[in-house]
């Protein structure tokens, strides 16, 4: 970010606010482009993973090699579809809901360190910011459900809000566990701490448990299977986006895959070493070398967790609504608090993986 501001100052003679605005525009634009391309790739990947798990082939024709352009073709189709707003819907709210939903998740990406120095803003409360800004998504969902003026949409929005708000408790509590160990909310500090010590997943059993709890509850937060009850396409009519079609609908899709990305990214950064390679000390490397390697390593870890999310989706059947709630409140919340308190005690005495 600072480097970009300096670059604009040097190249174009921009100063102060103008250079800042230009640098922000470039950063946001590149992240937006990345998210779009990533979403297309993730949708294609999801279809391929699903197909191979079900002993099928998936898209094979479009674009030549294994149907790689299928998502591009779908996106073009969605762009050209008719833009339908139901007659009795509240047009303004209907229009703004996909934007609110997408912005909430998308804003979380600006604090993520992709590699050394590849970060838009290095917030001191980075983890907190991601969790807080991702909650805006629920507001967008409720707006969408209400503005559609359809009973299916309204019930879908209520279901989804109930689930996502419930699962924010275990998500946030599980995130507190590594924060307790590292002693910072800043995402960069997790990278440096794990580069100096070890990956946090190996710190103690309680951190591994917190990672599992975070992963499960982030699945529920992303409305992924087995917690995709709010928008169960096969049984209930798609929940809150029943009335949406075309490009607006694809924004909800984009949001789903971006929130998967953020969840996987947080798992990789907080527990699995971020952009650090295992067993390799990269702190002394030249930035020009460390930067691309860091991005590749972080993306590889992230895509591994995205793959696990897809793998889980095509393995487990969907949970019933009471099962979702009892899983959240009876199992994940208590154990998240157990992990938090146990980590406090564990680290106070300075025990390692096994207290010997």
């Amino acid at each position, binding site marked *: 970010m600072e480097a970009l501001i300096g670059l604009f100052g040097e190249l174009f003679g921009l100063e102060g606010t103008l250079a800042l605005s230009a640098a922000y525009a470039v950063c946001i634009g590149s992240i937006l482009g990345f998210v779009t391309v990533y979403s297309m790739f993730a949708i294609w990947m999801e279809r391929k*993973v699903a197909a*191979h*798990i079900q*002993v099928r*082939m998936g898209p094979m*024709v479009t674009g030549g090699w294994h149907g790689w352009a299928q998502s591009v073709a779908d996106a073009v189709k969605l762009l050209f579809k008719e833009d339908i707003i139901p007659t009795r819907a509240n047009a303004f709210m209907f229009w703004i809901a996909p934007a609110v939903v997408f912005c909430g998740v998308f804003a979380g990406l600006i604090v993520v360190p992709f590699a050394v120095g590849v970060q838009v803003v290095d917030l001191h409360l980075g983890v907190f910011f991601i969790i807080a800004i991702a909650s805006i998504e629920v507001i967008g969902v409720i707006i969408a459900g209400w503005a559609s003026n359809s009973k299916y949409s309204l019930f879908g929005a209520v279901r989804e809000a109930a689930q996502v708000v419930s699962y924010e408790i275990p998500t946030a509590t599980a995130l507190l566990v590594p924060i307790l160990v590292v002693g910072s909310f800043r995402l960069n500090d997790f990278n440096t701490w794990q580069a100096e010590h070890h990956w946090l997943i190996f710190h103690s059993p309680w951190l591994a448990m917190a990672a599992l709890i975070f992963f499960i509850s982030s699945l529920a937060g992303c409305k992924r299977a087995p917690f995709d009850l709010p928008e169960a396409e096969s049984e209930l009519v798609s929940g809150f986006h029943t009335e949406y079609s075309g490009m607006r609908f694809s924004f909800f899709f984009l949001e789903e895959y971006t929130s998967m990305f953020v969840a996987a990214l947080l798992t990789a950064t907080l527990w699995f070493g971020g952009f650090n390679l295992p067993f390799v000390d990269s702190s002394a490397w030249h930035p020009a070398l460390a930067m691309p390697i860091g991005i590749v390593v972080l993306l590889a870890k992230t895509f591994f967790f995205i793959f696990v999310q897809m*793998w889980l989706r095509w*393995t487990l059947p969907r949970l019933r609504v009471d099962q979702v709630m009892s899983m959240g409140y009876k*199992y994940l919340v208590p154990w998240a608090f157990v992990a938090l308190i146990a980590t406090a005690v564990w680290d106070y005495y300075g025990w390692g993986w096994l207290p010997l």
Partner: protein
Amino acid sequence: MGAIRDYFGNISSALTSTAKGMGVTLRHYRKEPPITIQYPFERFPVPDRYRGLHILEQEKCIDCKLCAKACPVDCIEIEAEHHGRILEWTQFSIDYKKCIFCEFCIPPCPVDCIHMTTEYELATEDPDGMVEDLLTWTGLRPQDQRALEEAAARKAGKVVPDAAASKPSAEGTSAEDMAAKIAAIKARMGKKD
């Protein structure tokens, strides 16, 4: 105690069953080859006795209409004018909107002239196009026309000057195509004449 045992039992069964299920799906993901094929580019082999579209050997057909009578849904329409043993065809069509592919039309045929092929792609955008015309020629073939003219001339007491000119070589190309097509289908179905 029962409740506590249930609680921890739930946790352990959730973890073990998820792990087991993920093992199964991973095995499918990695090991099992796809059981589907890329349909328009490759096809499953069709059994020889598959009941697909019909084909008619028109030169054998004697217009007995037994196939049409046997048809339970009345989808076969046959019309021909008889000039002695020579038939002047106007219609032999099967309405595939009605046809149920029961094969009841095949056994009654006394001259074994109607067959079913292995063609199964019947989808069309035009419902009217589903009435399939099985005739490869309509009306009279040139040699039939000549044969009729000769017969009429003989009846009138005249001598036909150039009978050698009406050889089978004068047959229409469509009839030759038909013969080749039927031969190919018979070869595919392993049938003997």
